[in-house]
Structures are given as structure tokens and as C-alpha cells.
């Protein structure tokens, strides 16, 4: 792998390579260049991960023609597909070096910091949501209980913007979560559930289920569960699997004729207690 990266840099196939370098025994994201090619010897693989494609997007925004190489896990790969689709990166300028990642039928062994999720405490399970619960279990709660449980989780939010900042597929220059007339920065407590719903809407057809938002969240809000459920809606309604290809997104303005019909306004029903 190291020889591969060195060869790429020397050939000029890539200008920079994004990977992890061990610094004081911590694998940290690092940008390797031809000028300091000896650093490539310190390139490491580890279960730790970071949204390297986000760094690539920032670089491409400044220097559109830069040729970028990067280590890609399965989640990085899906994120790249989304970024190609939304014209944030040019696939011709990106070279990937796939590494072993999520376990699958073909390979049982996986290398990822997410394989052993944190266990949730009893109180959180009782009044909130278990971050590791399945999407089906989520639907088993009644309407009212669901609202209460989600609101318990959302009310913990301290508006640190960690989920947005780490998100590999968040790339807007102007963010509606920092807009004076939408969600202001500064004042606490944050407006819930608006803050999380804005993110949920933006993650529809975009979230690639890497789980970095949830790992970054200091308040243990089950964000991966929320966006996973949101993407399930996109799958059910439009049959679109996010990140698997660069096929057109259902929420892109350009595209096919819509065959969906608006839902009829059903007569009032008795609400579950």
C-alpha cells in the first residue's frame, strides 16, 4: 500500500494523498505530498476513521483541478458517490485506495471503530431511545410515546454543530442552521425539534450511514437511527438507495416525471391515547 501511494505521488497521478499518520500513537488524518514523500512510510491503517472526503471537498472548492488520492472505507466510498452526484468532487480527479472495512458475506473480518457500539444505560432505554435499536423496534412505539421519546433525546441537544461539522455529505456554503431567520447561532436552548428536523430533511437521500454524527455527538442523541429511518422512507417512497451509485437523486430538481399522487386528506380518526 505504501509503495502504491509513493508511486502515485511520484508519477503525478495524484497531487496529494489523504490518509492517516500515526502521531504520538494516535492515527490522525494527514495529507501526504510529493515534497515530503518520506512521510508516507508512516501511513497507517486502523479502526479509527474520519470523513477524509470532507477534507477533499474543501480542497476541491479552493483548487478545482487538484488530483486527490485517498484511503476509502466502504462508508467513504458511499460518501464519494453522493459528492460526485451533487457535483462537489470530480470523479476524474479522485483516486481511491480501498481498505478492509465493514464485514460482509465475503469477508467476516472488519476494521472499524463502530463495530462495537456503546451500550446504553437503563434510564435512556426507559425514557429515550436506545441508539442501537433496530428500525422496526422504533416503529413499535405508539404515536405519543414516540414523540415523547424523540423529544427526550432532542432536548439534550447543546447545539454544538458537531453532527453537521463531521458529516461527510454536508457541503452547503450557507447553512440553514446558522441563518438569522431560520435557526440562529448562539442562543441556547436550541429550538427543538426544528434543529434536528432540518438536518433530517437534508439527510434524506444523502446520509450514507457512516455513523460519524452519532460518534461525534456529546449528548448521545441517536442521530444514526433518525437518519437511517429517514433513508428508509426514501427507499420506500422512491426506491432509491443512497450512496450505492451515482444515479440521479429523487430530490434533485432535474429528473424524471413524478408519478406520486398527493395523499388524500383522510377523515379524522380517533387518536391513540
Amino acid at each position, binding site marked *: 500500500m505504501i509503495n502504491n501511494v509513493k508511486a502515485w505521488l511520484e508519477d503525478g497521478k495524484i497531487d496529494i494523498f489523504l490518509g492517516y499518520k500515526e502521531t504520538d500513537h494516535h492515527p490522525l488524518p494527514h495529507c501526504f505530498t510529493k515534497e515530503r514523500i518520506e512521510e508516507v512510510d508512516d501511513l497507517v491503517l486502523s479502526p479509527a476513521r474520519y470523513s477524509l472526503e470532507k477534507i477533499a471537498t474543501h480542497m476541491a472548492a479552493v483548487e478545482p483541478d487538484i488530483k486527490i488520492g485517498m484511503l476509502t472505507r466502504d462508508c467513504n466510498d458511499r460518501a464519494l458517490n453522493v459528492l460526485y452526484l451533487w457535483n462537489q468532487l470530480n470523479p476524474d480527479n479522485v483516486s481511491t485506495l480501498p481498505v478492509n472495512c465493514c464485514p460482509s458475506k465475503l469477508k467476516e473480518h472488519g476494521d472499524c471503530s463502530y463495530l462495537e457500539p456503546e451500550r446504553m444505560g437503563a434510564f435512556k432505554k426507559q425514557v429515550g431511545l436506545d441508539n442501537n435499536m433496530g428500525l422496526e423496534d422504533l416503529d413499535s412505539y405508539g404515536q405519543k410515546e414516540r414523540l415523547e421519546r424523540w423529544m427526550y433525546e432532542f432536548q439534550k441537544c447543546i447545539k454544538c454543530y458537531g453532527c453537521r461539522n463531521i458529516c461527510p455529505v454536508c457541503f452547503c456554503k450557507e447553512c440553514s442552521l446558522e441563518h438569522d431567520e431560520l435557526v440562529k447561532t448562539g442562543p441556547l436552548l436550541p429550538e427543538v425539534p426544528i434543529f434536528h428536523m432540518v438536518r*433530517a430533511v437534508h439527510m434524506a437521500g444523502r446520509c450514507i450511514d457512516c455513523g460519524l454524527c452519532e460518534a461525534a455527538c456529546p449528548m448521545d442523541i441517536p442521530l444514526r437511527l433518525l437518519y437511517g429511518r429517514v433513508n428508509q422512507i426514501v427507499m420506500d417512497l422512491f426506491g432509491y438507495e443512497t450512496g450505492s451509485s451515482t444515479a440521479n437523486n429523487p430530490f434533485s430538481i432535474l429528473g424524471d416525471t413524478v408519478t406520486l399522487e398527493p395523499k388524500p386528506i383522510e377523515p379524522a380518526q380517533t387518536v391513540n391515547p
Partner: protein
Amino acid sequence: MTVKRITFLQELLSILGLEGRLGLSWISSAEAQKFVQVVTDFTEKIRSLGPNPLSTFSDTRKAAAAELMRMDFKGDGYDQQRQSMA
């Protein structure tokens, strides 16, 4: 596009447990009768669903936010910053 977004939003609201509080209908300016029908139906529906359950949460949060503003943080080094944000 609208129908895609609204259908999606209806589903999103039902995840959170706010089902049935959003409707979409196309009504031309020549269809007064239809307009009246849709609005009446929807009003009835919303009334039967009861008040927005989110308001109970926002009341307690407003009280908490007011409490936060009352608290004395003077001399913690962030005074200026907070004032400029307020």
C-alpha cells in the same frame, strides 16, 4: 417536486409521532367549492387531533431558557460575547 417533498415530510412527521398534521392539495383559483371543502375537512381533522403536542415541550423549554438568562454568569469571561449574541 412539491409532491415528493411533502410526501416525504408527512412520513418524517409521522416518525416523530405528529401524524396527519400536514396535507397537500392542488386547487385552482376557479375551484372555490373545492377550496372550501378541503379547508373545512382539514380544519375538522386538526381539531379532532387536538392541540399541538409540541407546545407542552416548548413551554417547559421556554421556562428553562428564561432561567438560563436569569442566572448570574458575570465575570466568567463570556459576558461580552453573550451580550453581542442577545
